[in-house]
């Protein structure tokens, strides 16, 4: 059994220790926000925060997260359902199209803004490597800047 914290609540999972966290979340913990997009840490649709670090969960074995603090897209909002600033900025800029990859982008942007409250375009380019086939990149860039602005207000 591996115990960790998922979106603020304790989670105990009995599964193959080699099972990637993505599939633990989706199949054992009914947490379907993180998506399978490539399985090889290329696309970022599966990104979650592990101890605050944006990580592709498709390549993280269950056994490595004992005691860790894991946050998925479902955990970005408050207990009362208030959306995080990043989520609000995503709505304000009407970012998602199909929306499939957006959980990973939201996680990556959340981490970026946590360590760099006012990133430049170049810093956004460096930090955000996820793939979106709908082509929402221009709006993602705007939404990150907007979130930075909202956080300062």
């Amino acid at each position, binding site marked *: 059994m591996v115990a960790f914290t998922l979106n603020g609540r304790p989670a105990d999972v009995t599964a193959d220790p080699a099972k990637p966290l993505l599939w633990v979340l989706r199949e054992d913990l009914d947490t379907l926000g993180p998506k399978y997009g490539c399985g090889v840490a290329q696309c970022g649709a599966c990104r979650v925060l592990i101890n605050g670090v944006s990580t592709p969960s498709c390549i993280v074995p269950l056994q490595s997260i004992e005691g860790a603090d894991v946050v998925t897209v479902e955990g970005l909002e408050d207990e009362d359902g208030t959306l995080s600033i990043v989520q609000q900025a995503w709505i304000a800029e009407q970012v998602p199209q199909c*929306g499939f990859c957006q959980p990973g982008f939201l996680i990556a942007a959340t981490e970026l803004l946590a360590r760099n409250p006012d990133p430049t375009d170049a810093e956004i380019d460096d930090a955000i490597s996820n793939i979106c086939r*709908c082509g929402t990149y221009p709006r993602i860039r705007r939404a990150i800047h907007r979130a930075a602005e909202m956080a300062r207000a």
Partner: protein
Amino acid sequence: MTRILSRRAFLLTGAAVGGTALVAGIGGVGYLATVDVDGLNGGAVDGDTAELNAFVVVHADGTVTISVPRTEMGQGIHTGLAMVVAEEMDLPFDERIRVVFPTAAHAAYSSWFNVLQVRPEEASGPVVWLARRVLGEIGFIATGASASTMSLWHPMRVAGAAARGMLVAAAAARLDVPESELRTEAAAVHHDATRRSLSYAELAQEAATLPPPDDPVLKPREDWRIVGRAQPRVDIPAKVRGAPVFGMDVVLPRMLHASIRHAPVFGAGLAIIHNERELRAMPGVRDVTVINGLHVAIVAESWWQAEEAAWRLDAEWTTTEADNESSATLSLRMKAALESESPYENIDEGDVDAALAAPDGRFVEAEYDVPHVTHACMETMNATAILREDGSAELWAPSQNRSTMSAGLHRGMDWAGVSPEEVTLNVTMNGGAFGRRSDADVIAEAAFLAARYPGRPVKVMWSREEDIGRGLYRSQAAGRIRAALGPDGLPLAYDARVATQSILNSVAGRNFPFNPGPDGDALSVEGLDKPYYAIPNRRMHSQNVPSHIPIHFWRSNGYSFNTFFAESFIDECATEAGIDPLAYRRSLLRDSPRHLAVLDRVAEMAGWSTALPPGRGRGIAIDECYRSVVAQVAEVTVSDDGEIQVDRVFCALDAGLIINPDTVIAQVEGGIIYGVTTALMSRLTIEDGAVVESNFHDFPVQRLANAPAIEVSLMDSNEGPCGVGEPGVVPVAAAVANAIHAATGRRLRSLPLAITEMIGERRTRSVLQQGDA
């Protein structure tokens, strides 16, 4: 799915809500009456829901469910068409509106526009009437060809107006006043003289028992408050919570999971599995089975377990005649087809041969080509099916086509010798589609496996490697265009030829017992004919080049290569004539004011006449597609070592009447990025009959760091709504190639324009291919 139901609630009740909310039978059959033709009539009451017609259900709590029978795959159609209904009903466009994809195949939902190419608002006559009846009866409901708004905006306007009329009639009866004294606003009917108001929720149960108005009064455009003004998308709040149910997210009790390994060479099948016992002994594995004699399915208690076993599959596949095919052999066949003595003649106007034989003429000739590419939707192909013990079947799939869902379900169950009694089809949210999800391949696989495990749902999901390497493709293509230039430098004759594998033939070959396409299918030549350019002599030929590779619809189909060919070629003609590419096109558009206005708009946006520093260049391209006119200017920077970056793309679009402007802009932005990826980066390699590429490391795509900045301008237009899902893709490859020519003097005639390599784990660098000077 719906905005209000949680994921868990959907899983328990979603199908039931969709099913009972829309149980209408086919309505009256009034000859040629717009409303009755598609069976819009027929209110019904069920508990606290009042169904006013096939599109509108009013609930006792004041919420309104709007049925949008078109797949939401990112294009915002669930918002745009709901806006049309809300406008006509005077519903505030807020969270009280829920949008569902109905499970019933009501005749009014039919995609007959896609077949007849007649706008519903202009449709009349017995032939159209009959075709609408037939396509409605068979439940042909498709999302594609940038046609959803064109196909349904008018019917849904009428539905909204009819619902409003029924609510007004119910209020008139309740208040005992004439309808003419009533007005509607904010989801209520108001009688101003007596200051009485009745909400739609209060009236709906009575309204549903009344006949709809014979001729619903449509709101005049000057009174519109929702349509034409940017509205927030109904699906986005759920999408920032990770809450929507994509096909991949369907979870059902006792569900089994399957991962598939298809034969590497298309058309081959399984010969032998060497390690079946080993695979069966792996944790969670329930079955190793062969689908229709071809593909291996690993069935397990979890998809991860199924995929772990599939990775370890040691199989041999049957040999085929295509085992030695490669990109090189296929390219040679394409080039040879350009020399065909008997191509399909699509157009022959004027006397092209005479102009091309003029002794003192100036001639331009060029050949172009593009490789196979795939869609790479972020959500890999998947479907979930169950065969219940009572013989009924149910399917959940991210699909663009309800008809192919049904066909795929029956096909797969037929492979298992089962014929389901009754079928329920659920269209989930789609994680990208781009044409890919109009095929039923994965659906048939899920149906086959479900038939082997009666009573247990089976979800089939392809790995990314299967999705890219064993899927369906946009064909490679080769084009040759010749022109004779007149004294003014403009073409006197335009002679274009394309060789490619026919899209329609390939689609039909996989899905129909007959093959409807002539040699030159309309989708394979679209974009090559340039009818709006003033060229007196024009000819267009095409040649189908069959291969073993399955070709499918791909965002913008033939335009994705023909517009690259034709608009690159027009630039070459301008170069030969020594005329600026914008001025050259302006002259060619002298009889096409709509196109000229779009071209001028984009040139102005881009500052066409201003100079750029060395190493940078601008290129322009235009086309008409899906009834829209779209022009783009791309701005590129090419470094001394050939590295290319597309810095900015400007786009002007005349898409007729715009329902939701911000969503249209988003579609164009997305189309441009999809098109830039394909133009610069995308190429599938065929070796030994199989696709070599397998995942995003070797099929790279644009990411945020190299995506261009994009500026979109929407034209005011007198046209009805036109298509917007695909036009953004169409001119961009030519615009980028023309910009490269402007920056470097090099004319690149093959896609991809660059060779892209990974630098680090998730970054890419694109360096221009060697081109002709």
